[in-house]
C-alpha cells in the first residue's frame, strides 16, 4: 500500500496544445485512504485516474506513488490495479484465467497464482464461477471478477473508474457495501471515480470535487456538506440540491441581512466576510423548518412522498425553493406552509465567482495546502 502525491498535474489533449482536461491538480492521498473523485461528465476525474494508472501521460506535473516518481513509467511498472466501468474482462478467458492473467504475465509461480486466485475467489464469493466465461455472468458477478482481478495482484493502489455505473440501483448499493468492506479489510489505498454524489459521500474517506479539470474542493464528506467552498460544491453535494438565492447584503437594524425581493434573512454574526454587496444565499432543503407563526410561507406546488421523508417544491417570497421534512402526510399541493430559515444553517457565497464568504474556509485555502 502506498501514499500518492499529485503535484501540479495537468493534462491537455492534442499534443499539449488542445483543450485542457485537467489543470494544476494537486493532492496528497494518504496510505490506506479511500478517496473519491466526483464531478459531472467531462470534469477530468477519469482523466486524472488514468494519469495515475499510466494510461494517459501527464502534460506537466509529477505523480508519485510510495515516494517513487512514476510520471513517465508505463502502467505495468506502477504496481496499480484498475477496475473499469465496463469491467473490461477478457471475453475469451474463464473467470479463473481473467484473475490469473496479471500474475501470469508477471511470471508468478503457478502454485502461487492458484493460491492467490482461489483466495480472492473465496473472499469475493466467486468460487462457483471460476470456470465460467464473462458472458455467462451477471453484471454484479462481472464486477466482482473485475475486483478479484485487481485483488490478486496485491497492488500498491486500487483505481476504480465508475465501477458501479453499469449496475442497477439495488446492486449498486450492495456492491458499494462490498467495496467499503473490502477497503476496511485490506486497508488499501483506493481511488474511486464516480459522478454519483451518494456514492462519493458514503464511500469516501475524503472527496475531491472537480469541475472543468479543476479541483473545486477536497475534504471529508461532511466537511463538504457542511462548508461547501463554492456554489458548485453546494449544489453538487446534497440531494435535493441546496436552494440558492441571489441578493444584496443590507443592514437590517443592528444585524446584516440578505435581501432579495420580498425575502430578507438575517445572517449570523462574525461568520461571513461582508465586504461584498452582491451575494448568493444558500440553504439546504432539509434545513428549512416548519414554524407556525413564521411570516414566511411556502406556496406548495409539488409534494413528493418518498416514504420516510416528504419533498416539497414551492415558492417562498417569490423564490422557487425545495424543502425536505420528516414524513408529513397532510401537506397537499396548493397548501401554504409556514417556513423558517435557521440562521446558523445559512451559507453565503460571492455572486461573482461563487466562492464561499465563510471566514477561514474555502477552495483557495484547500488548494494551497495541497499544493504546498
Amino acid at each position, binding site marked *: 500500500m502506498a501514499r500518492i502525491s499529485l503535484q501540479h498535474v495537468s493534462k491537455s489533449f492534442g499534443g499539449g496544445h488542445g483543450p485542457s482536461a485537467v489543470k494544476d491538480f494537486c493532492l496528497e492521498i494518504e496510505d490506506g485512504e479511500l478517496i473519491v473523485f466526483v464531478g459531472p461528465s467531462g470534469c477530468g476525474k477519469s482523466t486524472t485516474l488514468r494519469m495515475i494508472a499510466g494510461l494517459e501521460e501527464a502534460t506537466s506535473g509529477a505523480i508519485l506513488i510510495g515516494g517513487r516518481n512514476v510520471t513517465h513509467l508505463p*502502467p505495468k511498472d506502477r504496481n496499480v490495479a484498475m477496475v473499469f466501468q465496463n469491467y473490461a474482462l477478457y471475453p*475469451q478467458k474463464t473467470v479463473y484465467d481473467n484473475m490469473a492473467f496479471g500474475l501470469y504475465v508477471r511470471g508468478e509461480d503457478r502454485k502461487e497464482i492458484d493460491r492467490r486466485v482461489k483466495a480472492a475467489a473465496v473472499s469475493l464469493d466467486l468460487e462457483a464461477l471460476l470456470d465460467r466465461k464473462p458472458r455467462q455472468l451477471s453484471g454484479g458477478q462481472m464486477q466482482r471478477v473485475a475486483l478479484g482481478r485487481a485483488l490478486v495482484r496485491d497492488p500498491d493502489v486500487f483505481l476504480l473508474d465508475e465501477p458501479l455505473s453499469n449496475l442497477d440501483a439495488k446492486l449498486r448499493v450492495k456492491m458499494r457495501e462490498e467495496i467499503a468492506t473490502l477497503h476496511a479489510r485490506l486497508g488499501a489505498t483506493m481511488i474511486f471515480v464516480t459522478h454519483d454524489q451518494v456514492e462519493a459521500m458514503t464511500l469516501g474517506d475524503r472527496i475531491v470535487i472537480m469541475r472543468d479539470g479543476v479541483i473545486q474542493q477536497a475534504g471529508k464528506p461532511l466537511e463538504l456538506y457542511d462548508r461547501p467552498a463554492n456554489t458548485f460544491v453546494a449544489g453538487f453535494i446534497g440531494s435535493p440540491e441546496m436552494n440558492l438565492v441571489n441578493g444584496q447584503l443590507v443592514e437590517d437594524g443592528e444585524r446584516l441581512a440578505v435581501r432579495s425581493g420580498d425575502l430578507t434573512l438575517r445572517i449570523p454574526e462574525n461568520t461571513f466576510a461582508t465586504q461584498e454587496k452582491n451575494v448568493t444565499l444558500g440553504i439546504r432543503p432539509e434545513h428549512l423548518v416548519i414554524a407556525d407563526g413564521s411570516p414566511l410561507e411556502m406556496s406548495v406546488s409539488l409534494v413528493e412522498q418518498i416514504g420516510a421523508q416528504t419533498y416539497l417544491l414551492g415558492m417562498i417570497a417569490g423564490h422557487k425553493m425545495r424543502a425536505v421534512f420528516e414524513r408529513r402526510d397532510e401537506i397537499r399541493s396548493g397548501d401554504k406552509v409556514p417556513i423558517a430559515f435557521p440562521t446558523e444553517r445559512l451559507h453565503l457565497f460571492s455572486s461573482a465567482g461563487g466562492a464561499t464568504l465563510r471566514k477561514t474556509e474555502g477552495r483557495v485555502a484547500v488548494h494551497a495546502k495541497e499544493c504546498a
Partner: protein
Amino acid sequence: MVQDRRVVALFIGSILLLGVIIGGPLVYAIMLSFYSAKSFVGELQWVGLANYAKTIQDPLFWQAFANGLMIALAAIFLQVVLGVGIALVLNRRFFGQSVVRAVSILPYFLPTVVACLIAQWILDPNYGLLKSILASFGIGIADWSAQGVTARGTIVLVSVWLWTPFVITCVLAGLQTIPTQLYEAARVDGAGAWRQFWHITVPGLRSVLVVVILLRGIWMFNKFDLIWLLTKGGPLNQTETLPTLAYRKSFLEFNLGGGAAVATLSFLILAGVMLIYLRLFPIDDAKQGR
C-alpha cells in the same frame, strides 16, 4: 394475411430462382459425370461410375489436387499473416492514415486479367521490368514459368498481392470491435505488446479470421482465372489444379463426362474439408468467445 401471403410468395420465388441458378447447373454437372459425351449438343451415353473410376486412377487428378492444396494453403497463410500485420499497422493513428488505407485496398479492385498481365510484364524473363532492373546490377533472372516451384510461387505471389487487401479490410473491421479497455486492462495487468496481441487481438479477431480463412480457402481452392492466365497449368502440369483440370478435360479434350467427374469430386472434397473446418472452428462460438 395479404402481407403474409406476399412474404411467402417472395420467399418461394427466391428459392425457385436460386434453385434454377445454382441447383440447375450443379445437378446438370453431376448428371453429366455419369455419361460419356463429346459435346453439349451430342447424344449422352450412360457410363455409370466409369468417369469417377478413371479420374481417381489418374495420377494427374491427385497431382492437381496436391497442387491446388499447396497453392491454397501457401496463399491463405501469407494473405492472413500479411493481412493481419498490415491491418494492425493501418489501425494505428498516423498522418495520412485514410489515404494509406485507401491505397492498400486498391489491388482488390483490379480485374484478375489486368493483375496477371501486370505480373507477367514485371516477371517476364526476357523483357520484364524485374529483369531490366536486376540486369542493371548485373544479375540475371531465371524463367519463373519453367519450374514448378517458381511457377507455383508466382501464382501464390500474385494471389497475395490481389487478395491480401480483402483480408486487411476484414481484419480492420474486426479490430474496431475489440474494446480499447481490454488493451488498457492488459497494460495495467502488465502485458506487453506481444502478449496483448496473443491474448486480446487474436481471440478478438477469431470470428473474423474463421470466416476469412473459410472464404479465402474456398476461393483459392476453386481459383481458375489466375492460374489459367499465368501458367495454364504448366510447366508439365506443375500448376495444374482441379478447376484447370476440369476445364482442360471438358473444353480442350472434349471429355465432358471426365471434366464433370473432376468438378464433382473437387466440389465434394471442398465441401468435406469445409464441414470439418466449421466443426473445428464454429463461427457462432468464435463470435461468442467460447
